[in-house]
């Protein structure tokens, strides 16, 4: 069993520090500049969160330590769960899910287990998901064994209630919904949707990716949702880390709390412990208790903002989004699909389809050109129901000046599309590398997923 050669690098510490410092300089973060990546909530993370999360009394704790030895952090986690209950209107939270998508899977498995326990698993095979939903929704539903039934959006960008009526049935296990939806539009008939879903015996799941638009203003629990996941790295400003770690706690109401993952924290007197006593728990989704260092940052965030601060953050996020939208839709070739009079929430989706038709310049190219101007592009080509979709979420931490600069850069690019389209075609030129050959990267004959592969 003994091995000889591993094949790890042989480099000195100063070389390593320079190498990764250089790599960091080739990377764009919220700390670098405006990053209105729609649906991802790239807001400023207060640096104090980093200081506190690195506290030695958290850092070195092992998850197998008996609860008596970790009462301090359990108290914080229990308090945090309480905050999340209050913010969402749920009755109980599990902090286990390591990211939003794992929260969705948790929720879908809870819906599955709920139907199993009442003997309807074989009949209720369908999960209803809007056509504007995040890709994780259908993927999570599928992993929990459901067939995905897509429901279209209506001409206003809402879930088409008539279409929903026609797909709801005794086969429906649940419906997954984001509110505001990915178009940035608040589903105002949500209570009606909830009632309809409940009437056929199905459950309503809240994808919390967009809670940041309404935190402190309205609660999913009051809208009729039975289950919720939150993305702490979105709503509660924990840094995204280049793609994680995130955290996706799941909350439940009423009898659905019995289905949450275990173990789950409980308070007995002034002590905290983990219990496995939930009657119908789906089991573990995480080997331990979740992404504690992220949860602790979210705790700090909520304590810094307080109730009024959370509400104010949501209001300013919506203000910034509508402001950016108002400026951009004035540009020739950019349109606002769905009803223009409905205020958008924390994000909005514009279509660059006219620009493409008029100039031949695609949104992908516009996005690349934005990088030359020192900005991160928005989310592009999502949601799928909007052609040349430009999905922007400036967030509440962006100043009016920065948003103005962003809009001015786009105005110039739109003009360039008509006067000097080659400039856009060649973009980006100011980044550490020019436009990348992505097709080559994934083609079997030219693909290189590791140095090891290259050597063979």
């Amino acid at each position, binding site marked *: 069993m003994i091995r000889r050669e591993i094949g790890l690098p042989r480099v000195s510490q100063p070389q390593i520090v320079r190498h990764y410092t250089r790599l960091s300089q080739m990377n*764009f973060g919220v700390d670098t500049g405006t990053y209105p990546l729609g649906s991802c909530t790239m807001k400023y993370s207060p640096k104090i969160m980093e200081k506190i999360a690195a506290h030695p009394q958290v850092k070195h704790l092992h998850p197998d330590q008996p609860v008596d030895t970790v009462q301090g952090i359990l108290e914080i986690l229990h308090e945090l769960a309480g905050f999340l209950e209050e913010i969402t209107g749920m009755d109980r939270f599990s902090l286990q899910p390591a990211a939003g998508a794992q929260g969705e899977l948790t929720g879908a498995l809870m819906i599955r287990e709920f139907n199993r326990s009442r003997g309807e698993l074989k009949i209720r095979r369908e999960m209803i998901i809007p056509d504007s939903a995040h890709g994780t929704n259908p993927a999570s539903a599928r992993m929990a064994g459901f067939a995905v039934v897509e429901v279209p959006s209506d001409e206003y960008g809402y879930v088409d209630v008539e279409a929903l009526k026609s797909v709801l049935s005794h086969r429906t296990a649940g419906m997954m919904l984001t509110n505001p939806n990915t178009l940035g539009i608040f589903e105002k008939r949500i209570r009606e949707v909830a009632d309809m879903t409940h009437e056929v015996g199905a459950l309503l799941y809240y994808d919390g990716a967009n809670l940041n638009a309404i935190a402190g203003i309205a609660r999913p629990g009051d809208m009729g949702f039975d289950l919720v996941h939150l993305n702490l790295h979105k709503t509660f400003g924990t840094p995204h880390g280049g793609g994680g770690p995130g955290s996706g706690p799941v909350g439940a109401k009423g009898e659905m709390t019995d289905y949450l993952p275990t173990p789950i924290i409980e308070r007995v007197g002034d002590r905290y412990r983990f219990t496995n006593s939930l009657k119908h728990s789906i089991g573990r989704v995480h080997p331990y208790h979740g992404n504690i260092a992220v949860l602790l940052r979210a705790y700090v965030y909520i304590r810094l903002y*307080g109730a009024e601060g*959370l509400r104010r953050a949501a209001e300013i996020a919506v203000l910034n989004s509508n402001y950016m939208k108002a400026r951009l839709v004035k540009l020739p070739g950019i349109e606002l699909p769905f009803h223009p009079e409905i205020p958008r929430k924390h994000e909005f989706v514009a279509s660059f389809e006219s620009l493409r038709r008029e100039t031949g310049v695609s949104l992908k190219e516009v996005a690349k050109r934005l990088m030359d101007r020192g900005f991160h592009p928005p989310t592009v080509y999502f949601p799928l129901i909007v052609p040349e979709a430009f999905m922007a979420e400036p967030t509440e931490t962006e100043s009016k000046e920065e948003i103005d600069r962003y809009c001015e850069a786009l105005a110039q690019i739109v003009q360039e599309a008509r006067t000097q389209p080659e400039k856009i075609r060649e973009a980006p030129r100011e*980044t550490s590398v020019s436009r990348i050959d992505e097709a080559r990267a994934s083609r079997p004959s030219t693909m290189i997923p590791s140095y090891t592969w290259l050597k063979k």
Partner: protein
Amino acid sequence: MRAYLPNDDDDIVAEMLGEIGVDSLDALFLDVPQNIRIEGNLDLPSPVTEDEIKGVVEVKLRKNLDLTAFLGGGVWNQNVPAVVSHLLSRGEFLTSYTPYQPEISQGIIQALFEYQSMVCQLTGMDVANSSMYDWGSAAAEAVLMASRVTHRGKALIASNIGPHRRRVIETYARGAGINVTAVEADWEAGTLDLEKLKEDIDDKTSSLYVEIPSYIGSIEPSPRDIAELLHDRNALLIVGVDPLSLGILKPPGQYGADIVVGEGQPLGSSPFLGGPLLGIFATRREREILRQIPGRIMGMTKTLDRSQRAFTMILQTREQHIRRERATSNICTNETLSATAAAIYLSLLGEEGFRRLSEDLSHRAAYLSKKLRKDVGLSSPPYSGSFYRDFLVSFEGTKKAGQLVRQGIDRGVLLGTETTHAFPHYGESVLTGVSDVHTKEDLDRYVEIVKDLLGGDP
């Protein structure tokens, strides 16, 4: 909230509302029906300042006890070089996100490519993804993937794997409609019982998941035989690893593993009560397998003008944002920063440093287990096979393991994770784990305390 919200100013708000064409912030929320609006404010504690929050948290954290803990099993408290946290704190890494736009995300993509490459070197595999959440979900996703590749619905797992990970696998498998069966171990040896395995494999078997070293520390003596048993029936071998063992143990790729998973946390991350962790996921170069990998993968390519080397996400058509319900997994946000930590950590240790640490951990565990055997007369470990850095200590016939653990805590030492119920074959027992934070004095103190608690000489 001016400090974080630059536009939270009456004049600025008024100017922006003017551009939007409404007269109040409230007008932007008119479509939120009154009957679902919160009346007043949420019931949350009053806000505190940045200066105050540190005190608020510290008062609570002081209730955690300071202990010398001998815990392993999937998370290890190890030394993390200062360079790692220094580099990870750079905002360009820390505050970026999934590199959807590769031209301004080269740093994180290249770091992940380096991570993937080093995982391949450690495991002897050809391709690794850029991370799963943790070892548990990586193992679960491997079981799901094996089922998709083989089109079979019966998964075998070794009965000496981590109990927590087993529960995660079972949760995921239930959703996917996969039947999970545990193959009984040869508990005397601490390893898989190959005869039992032969009985359990059939034409519906998609894979076997085995941990080498196992949760209880034991090392399979002939993993190649296990691989052959599975491959004879066209089933896949999934191996779970503590990556640090791979400085001395043969890489799973060399004995026929099809998928390797493991916990990357000990590669440059602190335990944080068990999260964030880092799920390692690596596999072989084969078309049908590549199409089924879950999660994000980075690749090396060129710029369109062929002038520069560049990195980007690859094989994205497997993923949820494109393939939706037909994706190989729902994973989106992963553990990129922990993977970056692992790349930095492995570079810092390098070939010699990694091997030295790997050997050193093994020596420390051997020293402690031998002392417990010789000086205290304990079954340590209570199985005949060799082990790596975690090992079981059986207290059977002396005192209750739980009681000993509690008494150890009173003396500032956490003797291990109680395993009496999870592994009843060994009676009263704990899983003890060592790491590079433990000094020789710590190891000797462990022995002295146990000796003392058990009442002197055996």
